[in-house]
């Protein structure tokens, strides 16, 4: 569930627009397609986790690659998680700025989101997981509500022609979304903390599948309402979808409630990633507890999320052009190298610190 929320949230806001721009009416296929590397990532993480059931990612990088190189890779991962987190804070505060409160300075949103995340992170992973359990149904409702209530206005014909221009635009369109599914990499750190690690493989796969289905369905509905030409132009297609709901005067303007539920979802995501960053930092620096790191970390977050991107266009460009490749390295390439080296050097669970 935790994983599901993590993936869904970032998939919801920007990805549909970026994908639709390239893949047009086949964008829903692109989004479904993008989940495949996610499964691969899950498999690698699972294999690694099986080799080192007691250790987390920053620990077994040191075991596999040796102390110095391991620290470097661990540090790189901290930066990566940090980046993911900053991006999601950024993403949501930009979303709020653009669609709700243009006058409010983004630093206010960032500070609020980060501080709540920090508070949750300082309470530990179990608290976050329990909160996620509570929020999950609400979150699903916030997704289902727009989908169901636009049903009467749906025109299936807008999905045609099927695969116009061949498969290539679809593949290119799927590139920005791959990173979203790849966020399953958080399991690499979380795995040893799970009660029943055996189930994680199935649960993770299930979360990926559910996210893929939901995101793809969301894209499909957006396309069927707004058509392929308009969807690519919109900044937040799914947001417009929830704005579109209007049953004369009975049910309309529900987007406020939906955005509120998304906000709850994003806070969970931020909290998890925040926890990961602090935890990994503490492990890499050989600290006894991660707690001293928590609040100082906010000092990194808030300015970074506020000043990293000057405007929306820059942010979108980054998501489209650079982020996929960066994510690709951290979510697929590095884990597979780790696994490869581990297999060759035959490092096994016997090593424990």
């Amino acid at each position: 569930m935790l994983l599901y929320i993590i993936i869904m949230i970032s998939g919801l806001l920007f990805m549909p627009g970026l994908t639709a721009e390239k893949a047009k009416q086949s964008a829903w296929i692109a989004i479904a397609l993008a989940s495949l590397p996610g499964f691969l990532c899950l498999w690698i993480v699972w294999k690694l986790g099986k080799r080192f059931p007691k250790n987390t990612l920053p620990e077994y990088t040191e075991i596999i690659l040796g102390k110095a190189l391991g620290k470097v890779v661990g540090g790189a991962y901290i930066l990566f998680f940090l980046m993911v987190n900053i991006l999601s804070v950024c993403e949501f505060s930009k979303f709020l700025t653009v669609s709700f409160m243009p006058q409010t300075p983004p630093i206010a949103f960032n500070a609020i989101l980060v501080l709540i995340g920090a508070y949750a992170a300082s309470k530990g992973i179990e608290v976050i997981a329990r909160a996620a359990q509570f929020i999950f149904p609400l979150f699903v409702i916030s997704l289902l509500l727009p989908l169901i209530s636009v049903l009467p206005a749906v025109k299936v014909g807008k999905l045609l022609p099927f695969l116009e221009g061949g498969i290539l635009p679809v593949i290119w369109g799927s590139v920005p979304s791959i990173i979203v599914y790849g966020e399953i990499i958080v399991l690499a750190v979380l795995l040893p903390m799970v009660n029943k690690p055996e189930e994680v493989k199935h649960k993770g796969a299930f979360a990926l599948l559910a996210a893929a289905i939901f995101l793809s369905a969301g894209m499909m509905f957006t396309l069927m309402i707004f058509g392929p030409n308009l969807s690519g132009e919109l900044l937040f297609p799914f947001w417009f979808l929830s704005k579109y709901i209007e049953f004369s005067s009975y049910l309309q303007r529900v987007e406020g409630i939906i955005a509120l539920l998304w906000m709850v979802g994003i806070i969970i995501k931020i909290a998890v990633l925040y926890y990961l960053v602090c935890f990994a930092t503490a492990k890499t620096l050989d600290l006894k507890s991660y707690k001293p790191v928590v609040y100082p970390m906010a000092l990194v977050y808030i300015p970074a999320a506020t000043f990293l991107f000057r405007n929306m266009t820059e942010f979108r460009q980054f998501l489209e052009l650079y982020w996929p490749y960066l994510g690709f390295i951290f979510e697929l390439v590095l884990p597979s190298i780790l696994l490869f080296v581990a297999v060759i050097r035959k490092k096994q669970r016997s090593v424990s610190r």
Partner: protein
Amino acid sequence: MKKKYRIFGLLILIILQSVISTGCWSSKEVESLAVVTLLGVDYTNENGSVQWTVSSTILNPLGQTKEGEQSSAKSDQETLLVGTGRTLQETITAFTAHSSRTPYYGHISAYIIGEKAAKENIGEFTEAATRYWEGRPRTLLIVTKGKALDVLQAGPAVDKLLSKELKELGMKKALATGYSYGVTLFDFVEWLKSPDRDPVATLVNVVPSEVPGLGQQNLMEGLAVFQGGRLIGWLNKDETIGYLLITQNINGDIPLTFIKDNKLFSYYISTTKRKILPVVTSDKISYRVQIKVMGGIIENSGLRLNAEDIKVLENIIEDRLQDLAMQTVDKAKEYNSDFLGFTEKLHRTDLSAWQTLGSDWRKVFRTAEVEIVVDAKIVQTGMMGE
């Protein structure tokens, strides 16, 4: 000690929360809002000097109507504001300059575009409207012959609020009565952006009132036809019914009058279903439209209809409907604008044929043959027992 800190932390969170929930910097009190209900846009370009005129109606809060004064005049609840400027942004700031309240655009029910603006610069406006964060996707897009300001000045015909009247007409009644079709902003923008279809917009005109002595009123009748982003013509009432027959599945009550044996009959269309089939042969493209109509006759000029009569009448009705639809198709070809969605259908069903068309798809549409097959049924004859 530790517990104290925790309580302190919680307190801070709660205080923060109460600050957040007011909306901080973006907070707006209802009293200080000017709720814009309609936005009219006019545009003139004389020898290069551009002038935009934005006129809007603003909902008066109920408390502001003076006591004892019954709201007898129609425009009592809506105030009209007008502003001019050289760019849209400048104009929009200008029209609210007189008001102490901040405009709020989340409740606009329709954008009304003047003829000149529609002819020359509708793209600029629709783009701005789509981007603006308070705007809503289902706002109606209405074009008028003449100036948008006149429409707003003429005021509502029956309802108290013009905005409400236009909204209800556009969303429900226009389609059901066959007078027009409520085109929303996003419909319009989607057509505008699509490479294979031309947009239409709802048409509202200022007409003299039917009740003598009441001045002018608005009438939603017909459609405005665009070619790409340029207004090029209008559809009258008959052509609008043809448009609806071809492009929509109607569920309403559209009257259709025809003559048989020198007697006037009135048939009403209650439901229609349509299907466009592109037929591609080696050298040309033609379209086949199948329309299935169900309806009834209530007014039968005192005649008693038997089974054979009904069959004859059905044939006459089919001819008449086919005629209406053909009129619209001819008009579309005359305007060189494929607002009926034929090419779009071709694009969706026959990709290779669409690819050969290239940029002159409008020309191909103009030369394409269109065949219309109507299957009309009379399911109600409105006859009571002897």
